[in-house]
């Protein structure tokens, strides 16, 4: 039987490139490729004839199901000769007007083996097919893009890479943050806030930098987009706490239903080709781009309601069950809800999505629109989002593919003032009659709701990829992209407001423009027999322009709707910066016998934020993989096994102004005044992180057991540390210097197993286990320094370590002895465990569940600490107050005196462990066909999210997953996470209906 020629096609070149493109078919060829393969198959050879339209014709209908359970497989790509289609949620596909003849049917789906068979079509007849796909979680010929110069088969890649197939998720993700949560080993997504609009902190293998952003780079279809949060909605100068605790994430402008899949690479061993700014990892999102075939309409609506779980302490500080004395009972609220009961409500979210996709082999499209209307659990929380997307892919010539993807979203947020502020709801309610109003009466506290916090965020991402492949073994690719993320904020305390009687207002405009230019070429050729080389080279430039302009005023003439113009006192603030990062790379992949792979590469980078005396920086990489299961000695019964190891370097650049000695100018009585700002450092460069990792991927027991294991260790040299200057030498801001050395290591284990596989019943289970332990190896002579929120960088300690005062004699019945520099532990989890379980049930039902545990981290709890030092009577101390109030402290140990008596109190005593478990998702789903013609279907999902949670710190009022702060660093912007006045992540009940026609 003749083998169809399999041409390794350098698809959508470069790791920075967008998703997989259809390779260019030559005449008579059809591209039968999507996720799991890159072969071009000669349809004519397979079918034995050229399909030509003839009348009359037949119909081919079929259903794609899972082997064993017969559960429907949606979104599988079905190829019938030269025609393509996609199975709907019920697994059904159909081809009409098929000329009589014999065709090859191919079906592909991530996680399953490719299915191929012949089918004969007869005029005026309907041919029914049942296509049974066999699970194959580890597909070594699956194409991955991220971290490679172009596209690579998984077998070639020496580093760990995670793929999330969004179309086959059992859950209904509410956002991209939600979509990523718990989906890959080493990936930690921390929710930060129970309010609407808050972005999550994303960490890949923990923190890589002590001073720079640890948020990974985000690419959407090859275009770099803003990954750090937007500025907090607060007054442009002065106290930044006058706000809520959230920072909006640009990632959540992407509608999850537009996403096809996500690739995650976690560290420098994989991200070398991205250069200076990629040390924290790279997440690449691939959006849907349509399938060849008849137009397909999809309508989806998600309706959900959210409620706040109980979050008050259940124990006193001494570890005993909490007893609430009569005198502490608040008629307006309960400890369970931190006395917020009068304001908490049920939140609702209504989302509607309509999309259309289809096209021909040489032109495909995907267009969608979505609108969301959400009210949060806090009284003013409201969010609306509207988004549109258009993705177009055309092949004007056989050797040329052009793609253009554009999305635009607009968001309007109204937030409840719940931050660490005198005007904050959470803060005042929790302090009862010892708050800023001197009253626990909701009528008094509710005056803070006159504080208006509104934001509008517009986000445009547009980019094109031009791929030119003049020869089978040579291809080039050019990507041009533009990301515009703009935020308008309004922070308004009207005239007569409780905390600012004459009122104040600020209007802020922020924009971030990221321009991507990315070129790469790959030349594949045979060096010797069985030894091939894929040589790649390219250049990339990323320019980021940020503008932050704000105006504020206060003291209005009287009531009424005001603008900045109306305040008696006003000011303006303007910040602008432009950072350019550009570089070259070269890489060669040596392929011996299609099972030994060695990759050598290097990136050469420059950055406008480097010191003037610093030249181009070079980041090398080397990796290897070995498909041991392709060896003749490998027993077939053991399945597939790939061994891999990788070493690479990447970096993090300093900020735009860090290298230059500068002064700030302030207004002082109408004249300018110079203040020292930045000391400057001509030799300032990137911190350089080296990472080595090794591991294996295996699929055995007929694909029923899949294991992915990775060990990694990374070392950051020239770490950028904020070296403090002696105040007596001018109190310059801490100067970044390349002096430190950090190390972190860990293991990542992912296991997926098919436990039961019977007709109409199946049980799949999996878990991931990830660890991360970091340590400061050297401070380079610098003194230990704080990076805020009790986070310190100290030699021999985690990065950062949560440090503060502690009580030296906690168990003694004596006056507390205060001890300085006590280390509690790291600020990021040292261990993360996720567990998943999904059941295939009769009647096309499925039930899935996912839980996540994070442990080992510590943080300062702002709400607890700030209350106790103010003499607020705090629930965690209720058990101790009777003795304290009586003046007889003989039964009160020092640890309790320190935490419950302001005479001994210190904020640092409110440092708590952040260990928690959450039942992230529980979803019941049913898919079924609709009798509306074609391949119409419906899918109904009912799910509960965060239905159950557990936290280790039972004596704290906090949700360990939230964050907040008094300063500009709130939510995802926090370098060191502290837990503030944010309400907990709510539990959500959701019903989703998706109709496909």
């Amino acid at each position, binding site marked *: 039987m003749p083998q169809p020629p399999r041409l390794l096609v350098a698809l959508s070149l470069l790791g920075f490139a967008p998703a997989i493109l259809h390779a260019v078919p030559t005449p008579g060829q059809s591209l039968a490729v999507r996720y799991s393969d890159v072969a071009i198959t000669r349809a004519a050879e397979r079918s034995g004839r050229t399909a030509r339209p003839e009348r009359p014709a037949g119909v081919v209908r079929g259903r794609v199901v899972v082997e064993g359970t017969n559960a429907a497989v949606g979104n599988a790509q079905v190829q019938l000769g030269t025609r393509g289609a996609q199975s709907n949620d019920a697994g059904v596909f159909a081809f009409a007007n098929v000329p009589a003849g014999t065709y090859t049917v191919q079906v592909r789906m991530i996680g399953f083996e490719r299915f191929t068979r012949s089918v004969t079509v007869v005029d005026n007849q309907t041919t029914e097919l049942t296509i049974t796909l066999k699970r194959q979680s580890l597909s070594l010929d699956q194409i991955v893009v991220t971290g490679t110069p172009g596209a690579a088969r998984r077998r070639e890649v020496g580093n760990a890479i995670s793929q999330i197939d969004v179309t086959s998720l059992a859950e209904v993700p509410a956002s991209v943050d939600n979509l990523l949560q718990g989906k890959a080993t080493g990936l930690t997504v921390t929710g930060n806030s129970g309010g609407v609009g808050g972005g999550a902190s994303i960490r890949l293998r923990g923190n890589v930098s002590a001073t720079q952003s640890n948020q990974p780079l985000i690419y959407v279809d090859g275009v770099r987009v803003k990954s750090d949060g937007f500025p907090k909605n607060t*007054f442009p*100068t*002065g106290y930044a706490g006058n706000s809520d605790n959230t920072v909006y994430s640009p990632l959540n402008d992407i509608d999850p239903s537009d996403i096809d899949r996500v690739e995650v690479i976690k560290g420098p061993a994989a991200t070398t080709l991205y250069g200076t700014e990629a040390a924290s990892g790279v997440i690449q999102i691939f959006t849907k781009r349509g399938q060849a075939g008849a137009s397909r309409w999809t309508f989806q609506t998600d309706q959900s309601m959210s409620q706040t779980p109980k979050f008050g302490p259940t124990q006193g500080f001494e570890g005993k069950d909490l007893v609430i004395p009569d005198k502490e009972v608040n008629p307006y609220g309960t400890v369970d809800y931190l006395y917020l009961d009068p304001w908490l409500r049920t939140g609702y979210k209504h989302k509607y999505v309509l999309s259309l996709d289809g096209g021909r082999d040489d032109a495909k499209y995907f267009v969608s629109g979505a609108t969301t209307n959400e009210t949060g659990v806090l009284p003013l929380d409201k969010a609306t989002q509207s988004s549109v997307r258009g993705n177009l892919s055309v092949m004007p010539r056989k050797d040329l593919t052009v793609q253009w993807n554009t999305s635009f979203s607009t968001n309007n947020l109204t937030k409840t003032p719940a931050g660490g502020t*005198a005007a904050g709801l959470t803060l005042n309610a929790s*302090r009862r009659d*010892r708050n*800023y109003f*001197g009253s626990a009466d909701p009528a008094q506290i509710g005056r803070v709701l006159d504080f208006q916090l509104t934001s509008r965020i517009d986000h445009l991402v547009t980019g094109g990829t031009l791929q030119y492949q003049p020869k089978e073994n040579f291809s080039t690719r050019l990507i041009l992209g533009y990301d515009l993320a703009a935020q308008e904020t309004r922070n308004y305390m009207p005239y007569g407001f*409780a*905390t*600012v009687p*004459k009122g104040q207002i600020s209007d802020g405009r922020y924009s971030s423009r990221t321009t991507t*230019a990315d*070129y790469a*070429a790959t*030349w594949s050729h045979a060096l010797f027999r069985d030894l091939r080389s894929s*040589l790649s*080279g*390219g*250049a*990339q*430039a990323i320019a980021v322009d940020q503008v932050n302009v704000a105006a504020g005023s206060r003291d209005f003439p009287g009531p009424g709707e005001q603008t900045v113009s109306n305040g008696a*006192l*006003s*000011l303006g603030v303007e910040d*602008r910066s*432009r950072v*350019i990062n*550009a570089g*070259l790379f070269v890489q060669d992949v040596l392929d011996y016998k299609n099972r030994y792979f060695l990759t050598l590469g290097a990136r050469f980078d*420059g950055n*406008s934020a*480097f010191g003037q005396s610093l030249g181009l920086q070079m980041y090398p990489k080397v990796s290897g993989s070995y498909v041991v299961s392709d060896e003749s000695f490998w027993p077939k019964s053991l399945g597939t096994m790939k061994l891999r190891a990788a070493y690479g370097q990447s970096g993090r650049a300093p900020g735009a102004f860090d290298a230059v000695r*500068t*002064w*700030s100018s*302030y*207004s002082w*009585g109408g004249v*300018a*005044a*110079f*203040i020292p700002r930045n000391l*400057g450092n001509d030799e300032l460069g990137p911190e350089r992180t080296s990472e080595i990792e090794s591991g294996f991927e295996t699929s055995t027991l007929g694909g029923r057991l899949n294991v992915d294991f990775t060990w990694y260790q990374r070392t950051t040299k020239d770490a950028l540390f904020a070296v403090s*200057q*002696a*105040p*007596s*030498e*001018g*109190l310059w801001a801490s100067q970044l210097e390349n002096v430190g050395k950090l190390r972190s290591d860990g293991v990542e284990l992912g296991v997926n197993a098919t436990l039961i596989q019977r007709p109409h019943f199946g049980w799949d289970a999996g878990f991931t286990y990830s660890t991360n332990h970091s340590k400061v190896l050297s401070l380079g002579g610098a*003194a230990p320094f704080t990076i805020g929120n009790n986070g310190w960088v100290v030699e021999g300690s985690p990065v950062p370590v949560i440090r503060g005062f502690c009580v030296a004699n906690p168990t003694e019945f004596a006056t507390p002895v205060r001890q300085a520099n006590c280390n509690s532990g790291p600020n990021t989890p040292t261990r993360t465990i996720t567990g998943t379980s999904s059941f295939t049930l009769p009647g096309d039902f499925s039930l899935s569940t996912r839980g996540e545990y994070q442990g080992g981290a510590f943080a300062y709890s702002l709400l607890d600490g*700030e209350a106790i*030092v*103010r*003499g*607020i009577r705090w629930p965690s101390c209720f058990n101790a107050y009777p003795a304290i109030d009586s003046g007889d402290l003989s039964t009160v140990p020092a640890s309790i005196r320190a935490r419950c008596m*302001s*005479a001994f109190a210190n904020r640092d005593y409110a440092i708590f462990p952040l260990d928690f478990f959450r039942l992230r998702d529980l979803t019941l789903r049913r898919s079924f066909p609709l009798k509306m013609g074609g391949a119409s279907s419906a899918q109904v999902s009912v799910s509960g999210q965060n239905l159950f949670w557990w936290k280790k710190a039972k004596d704290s009022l906090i949700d360990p997953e939230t964050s907040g702060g*008094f300063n500009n660093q709130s939510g995802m912007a926090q370098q060191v996470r502290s837990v503030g006045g944010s309400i907990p992540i709510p539990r959500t009940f959701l019903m989703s209906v998706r109709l496909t026609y």
Partner: protein
Amino acid sequence: MHTYHTRRASRGHALRGVALAAVLASVTACDFSVTNPGPTADKFLTDTLSLVAQVNGVAFTLGDGMNYQVLHSAVAARELFPTGQSGQFGIEPRNWVGFLVTEEQGTPWNSLSRARWLSDQSIIRLKSVLGDAAFAKHPVAAQGLIWRGFTYRVLGEAMCVSIVDGGPATPSRDNLVRAESAFTAAIAVATAASAATTGATATTAANLVNAAYAGRAQVRVDLGDWTGAVSDAARVPTAYKYLMPYYSNVDEYGYNRTMWSSTAQSFYKATSVWGTWYAKYYDSSRDPRVAYTQTALTGAGAFPPVGRVPWWPQSKYLTQTAGVTLVSGREARLIEAEAALRNSDIATAMAKIDANRASAGAPVAARPATLADAWTLLKQERGIEFWLEGRRLADMRRWTASQTPGALDALEIPGATSYLEGQNTCFPVSREETNTNPNLTP
């Protein structure tokens, strides 16, 4: 298998691709020169036009440091009573009961140290840019020296030790010596500037001469040079005042902190006059220098021994822009009064106090029966005159050191009445300084 021709063609494409990559690289990868607007590069500070802004920077930072030093020392000296509000515009718990400890008091040291460094740097740069001859009669130089003098005076009175440019800690008296030197130089330069200029500039310079003499009188008192102090004080008219201005832009950190931390306009209600000797005195005298208002409200938070503290806000500073007196003619009269008491001359001392009170619109003080009573009165008088100006702790330290007669009220010294568990009379070195200064032990 590829033919030779195909291979050659492929290599040609490859070369073209590499060439294109090289072109792109030359365009993109090599041009990293970016000039971002905003912060002023250091090189521009040598321009003559930048000198005024540098001198203003000294005043700005001195005012910032005083904002914290005045408020925190007022609580330790029980010029004000804490209500329990800490953190934002509040008072920290150890400060509530009289202690000024490193862990809570970094800001006064850091801000005032920055002001000191800036004051020295501004003088160096002024001399460098103007030249010695022009400097000796330049109004901006006179202003720079005045700020330098007051910066060192505040440091000398408020801080426990002196540290210059990351050097070792020396007695705080060294700050006072430098202050005296700065004021002496300021007298010469301001006098010359007044003579060399006309109009408003000359008037301003002449005003600085008074400030310099008054400032030097202050530090000479601290240094124990009473002859010099009285000599300088005599040159200062009773009505004369020189203020540290605060300006009301929108940033609340620039406001008079003593006012903003406890006013109905700001909501913080961090301090109260309740529980202080000054409330008692005002109730009986209505002396406008210690005015306050009684309200039915309580402060934010709670002071545990008391619970919720009645909120009686001070009325000395009623606006965000209210300036804090750095030196005045009324202080000059009190210097003269204290000098007289040191010579047991009660009559002269009372005459000076009367002059002071008359100028302030305060009632005439009762005549003391004894020298000790006169000292008590003088100590009260300085407390009243400098109320909420950050001077009280230095006076307490000075009087303790010189063992002068006269008593302080129980409400302002440690004890059950004042709820003071102790009383630090100077601010410690900040942790930031200790951690970064190689001459100090962390």
